[in-house]
């Protein structure tokens, strides 16, 4: 049996769906390969020429003796030590150059030019005490040029001026200053190396050398290849998040394509029922019919996969070009094509089509031969009761999982459970949708029916006549819109909740914390800010580590003026007003109000009376003492750990920032978090995430719309006689087109409306789970959701353009003569 009677043209939409899905998968894989290759090239710089490496443990250093030992090892040709120490660099305004709050590092020039971890981009390398080179990213952000003088802070926080003589290219985001070894030692008081790297003599196996190395305790030895691999892993961590995200979306695209294909085959099989029955009459066995249908689907799958790979190459190129917009900076590099994506695509294409076609194909084989002789072929459908029972069981499991997730306290596990429950309920929704889609379409079509009369009412009737088909068509859209709505609800809820928490807990403008690696902020900073009329609230927090009943806690002393103003904890028991000398605010869970709580800290033990229980704050501390109590108990704790600053009303934000910066010129090792810019950054980050979601799911939407076009085209073919009849009875061409347009619109909006409802529900539940004990503030991004529905509806109408034109073009007489 070579022919199944499926005309190639009718398989075009199936092919299109698979082309798009494969393109996404192949594109993601090619992009991921290319990005990895570019990153490996970049990270390999640090491991260039390295055959073996000995690394100190975190925080440890290797001594010159260790370097000598490596040099003396049999097979080692040359070896050099690499120093890397914290060396804070200040910008032109005297502010600390920091990456995520961490000051920069200094590295030594190195003795062996072949074993350097950087490349000189411009100028020369430092040779004297007063010279330095900086990395190109820092040069860009600070505006320092060759010949400029730059200031660094030495170990005792004294300013030292260095002349910039060169710019280097180096791996990583941390600001790096290259100085001579002697200078680095003088500035940082440090000797010793983070790494000792070595080359081996020609013909010697690096592994053998590695095994011969005398490795000091708390250090490790690796071959150059291992070193490169480890560096690469570090590099991949940057893009893993993005790649996983892309693969998830690719999976969604494949799923949606599966819906479209299953639906197409379902309709084709239904339309060919009589012919299939005829084939059975003349002796075709069930297996033969099944095999021929599956063979057809496999062919479409292979063809679609081949085109999909080509399109995927373009997708990968687009992703690589657009990756900056997705928040990942990649070094320049071309597309890398490995056989792996090709193989996966060629297998995936036919696999998806065959799996999607198998159910409709199997149904086709159940057509009794006698159906060929009947006028009307009875519709075959699953029994409603089976469907309802199955859906109810799946929904029950999904709901129980969701509830279990919501009751769980660990946010991560809770989220996984909620999402799993969501998937369960979504499946139940898909199962039940053929039974409810009719009513939904009727409800949605009520208004158009009133407004546009007969064409709209005919459209509603048509959309309702085959609920299974309508449900399957909308399901594809449901998936895409549901994910988009869920994503944007989560984003909006996270945004609002984080904002509320920030405002609630810290109604201030600036948070000052010690830069990474610093123990505290000099009291002079707090004193100067307190005396500045620009600020109407300066709350200084001092902290020590302590223990309560075996738990490590942070004991804090806080200006009494700050309680209830800069620091507004959520009180779970007791009253803030009862807080005073001799008492404490304690994180919930450490006792009862009025209890005497034993606290040991800084080598002292004492009792405090619990005035009130509050929600723990990681920033302030777990046990909060009255300032005089704190000073009496821990007199040696003079530095502040945190300063909360609020501008006086009417003060311009940039003026206020300048005053903060001015207070810090003498003490630059302080990180300033500008809450206004924190808010702006968070807003930008959330908009970016939404943008990514929208772009990627747009792909799934396109596939879903191909599905709508497809269903409508096939329905139009099926209804040729009907269309001719209503045309004869007085439906104009325009009205016939309108009928199909409204039908597409109804299907699209049914999918979109249910998708939005489901997405909002589970977006909210997932955020609720993610925030754990704190309540998430549900935010429904109404504008966005409305735009999703509108986009889906407009796109749905767009999907009807071709089928409706074909339907309207047909002449009444020939259409009646046809079927």
């Amino acid at each position, binding site marked *: 049996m070579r022919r199944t009677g499926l005309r190639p043209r009718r398989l075009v939409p199936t092919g299109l769906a698979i082309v798009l899905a494969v393109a996404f998968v192949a594109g993601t894989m090619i992009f991921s390969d290319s990005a990895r290759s570019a990153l490996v090239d970049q990270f390999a710089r640090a491991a260039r020429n390295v055959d073996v490496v000995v690394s100190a443990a975190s925080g440890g250093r290797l001594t010159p003796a260790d370097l000598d030992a490596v040099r003396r090892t049999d097979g080692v040709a040359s070896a050099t030590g690499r120093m890397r120490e914290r060396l804070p660099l200040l910008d032109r305004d005297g502010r600390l150059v920091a990456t995520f709050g961490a000051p920069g590092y200094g590295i030594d020039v190195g003795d062996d030019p072949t074993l350097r971890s950087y490349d000189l981009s411009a100028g020369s390398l430092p040779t004297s005490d007063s010279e330095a080179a900086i990395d190109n990213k820092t040069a860009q952000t600070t505006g320092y040029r060759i010949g400029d003088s730059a200031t660094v802070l030495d170990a005792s926080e004294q300013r030292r001026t260095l002349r910039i003589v060169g710019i280097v290219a180096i791996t990583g985001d941390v600001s790096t200053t290259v100085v001579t070894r002697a200078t680095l030692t003088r500035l940082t008081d440090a000797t010793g190396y983070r790494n000792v790297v070595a080359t081996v003599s020609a013909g010697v196996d690096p592994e053998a050398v590695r095994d011969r190395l005398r490795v000091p305790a708390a250090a490790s030895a690796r071959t150059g290849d291992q070193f490169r691999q480890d560096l690469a892993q570090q590099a991949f961590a940057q893009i893993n998040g993005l790649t996983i995200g892309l693969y998830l979306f690719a999976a969604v695209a494949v799923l949606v394509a599966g819906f479209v294909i299953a639906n197409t085959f379902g309709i084709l099989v239904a339309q060919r029922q009589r012919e299939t029955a005829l084939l059975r009459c003349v002796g075709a066995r069930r297996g033969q019919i099944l095999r021929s249908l599956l063979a057809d689907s496999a062919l479409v799958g292979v063809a679609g996969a081949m085109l999909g790979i080509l399109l995927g190459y373009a997708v990968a190129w687009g992703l690589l070009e657009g990756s900056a917009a997705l928040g990942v900076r990649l070094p320049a590099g071309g597309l890398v094509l490995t056989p792996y994506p090709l193989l996966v695509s060629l297998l995936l294409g036919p696999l998806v089509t065959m799996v999607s076609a198998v159910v409709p194909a199997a149904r086709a084989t159940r057509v009794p031969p006698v159906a060929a002789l009947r006028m009307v072929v009875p519709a075959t459908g699953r029994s409603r009761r089976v469907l309802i029972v199955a859906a109810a069981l799946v929904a029950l499991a999904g709901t129980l999982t969701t509830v279990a997730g919501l009751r769980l306290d660990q946010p991560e596990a809770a989220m996984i459970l909620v999402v799993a429950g969501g998937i369960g309920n979504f499946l139940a929704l898909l199962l039940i949708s053929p039974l409810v889609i009719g009513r939904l379409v009727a409800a949605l079509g009520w208004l158009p029916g009133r407004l546009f009369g007969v064409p709209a009412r005919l459209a509603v009737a048509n959309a309702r006549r085959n609920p299974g088909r309508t449900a399957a068509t909308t399901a594809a859209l449901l998936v895409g819109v549901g994910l988009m709505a869920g994503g944007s609800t989560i984003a909006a809820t996270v945004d609002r909740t984080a904002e509320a928490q920030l405002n609630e807990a810290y109604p201030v403008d600036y948070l000052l914390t010690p830069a990474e690696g610093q123990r505290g902020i000099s009291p002079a900073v707090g004193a100067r800010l307190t005396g500045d009329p620009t600020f109407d609230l300066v709350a200084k927090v001092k902290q020590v580590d302590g223990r309560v009943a075996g738990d490590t806690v942070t004991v804090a002393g806080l200006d009494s003026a700050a309680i209830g103003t800069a620091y507004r904890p959520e009180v779970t028991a007791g009253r803030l007003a009862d807080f005073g000398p001799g008492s404490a605010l304690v994180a919930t869970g450490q006792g009862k109000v009025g209890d005497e709580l034993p606290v040991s800290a800084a080598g002292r033990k004492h009792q405090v009376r619990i005035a009130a229980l509050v929600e723990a704050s990681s920033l302030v501390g777990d046990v909060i003492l009255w300032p005089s109590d704190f000073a009496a108990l821990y007199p040696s704790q003079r530095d502040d750990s945190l300063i909360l600053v609020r501008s006086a009303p009417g003060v311009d934000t940039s003026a206020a920032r300048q005053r903060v910066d001015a207070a810090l010129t003498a003490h630059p090792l302080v990180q300033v978090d500008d809450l206004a810019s924190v808010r702006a950054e968070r807003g930008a980050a959330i908009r970016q995430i939404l943008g990514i979601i929208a772009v990627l799911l747009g792909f799934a939407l396109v596939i879903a719309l191909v599905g709508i076009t497809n269903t409508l085209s096939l329905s139009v073919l099926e209804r040729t006689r009907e269309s001719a009849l*209503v045309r004869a009875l*007085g439906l104009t061409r325009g009205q016939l087109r309108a009928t199909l347009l409204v039908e597409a619109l109804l299907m699209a909006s049914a999918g979109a409306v249910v998708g939005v409802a489901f997405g909002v529900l589970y977006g909210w539940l997932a955020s609720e789970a993610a925030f754990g004990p704190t309540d998430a503030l549900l935010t429904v991004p109404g504008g966005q959701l409305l735009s999703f529905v509108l986009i889906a509806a407009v796109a749905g109408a767009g999907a009807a353009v071709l089928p409706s034109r074909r339907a309207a073009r047909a002449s009444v007489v020939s259409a009646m003569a046809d079927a």
Partner: protein
Amino acid sequence: MTTTHAVRADELVKVYGEGETAVTAVDRVSVTFPAGQFTAIVGPSGSGKSTLMHLLAGLDTATSGSILIGGVELTGLADRDLTVLRRDRIGFVFQAFNLLPTLTAEQNILLPGELAGRRVERQRLAQVAADLGLADRLHHYPAQLSGGQQQRVACARALMSRPDVVFADEPTGSLDTRTGAGVLELLRRSVREWGQTVVMVTHDPVAAGYADRVVVLADGRIVDDLRAPTPDGVADRLQRLGA
């Protein structure tokens, strides 16, 4: 006296194809259908009787000639205007597939009126439904009706708006003899009792026997025009054409 003519065709020509392969389906046909008359168009298959009906009903466009329905010239009308004319002035009964499966009998009957945006005449609907024995079938879907009932619904739809003319295309073609007779009787009654104009295309002499007049078509031309025909007379005439 054009006003008494429901439909009038002059020198009507329909040619399919071009040049050597051109086929003339309707060849310079001039005919008038007076109002209040039941006319049957008969002829062997390929005689052009269906094409003639399609032209008269504005379903197809003529190559040349003119058609007047209720005083309106059809030739030269745009598709939209033709559609509106069909909706407002013509009733249709086809051989099969007369009804939209997604609509109930009542909705099917009311469809042309609704397309025209006319107010539903409840009284008229009740009268037509009662006359056609459909009163208890109005809320059934076509699939729940027998073939005869379906054709009666189609007749009700055609008669509902008192059109200038009802075109019936082999209305009994897929019915058994007894049911078919019922439908033909119904059409004849609509002419006798309500003054309706009916033009029916058929190849069945028995069906033609219900008409007041039979127009016989062969090779696209009118070859005979019988008044008060009998089934035997029509059969005889058709037989002679075949010979």
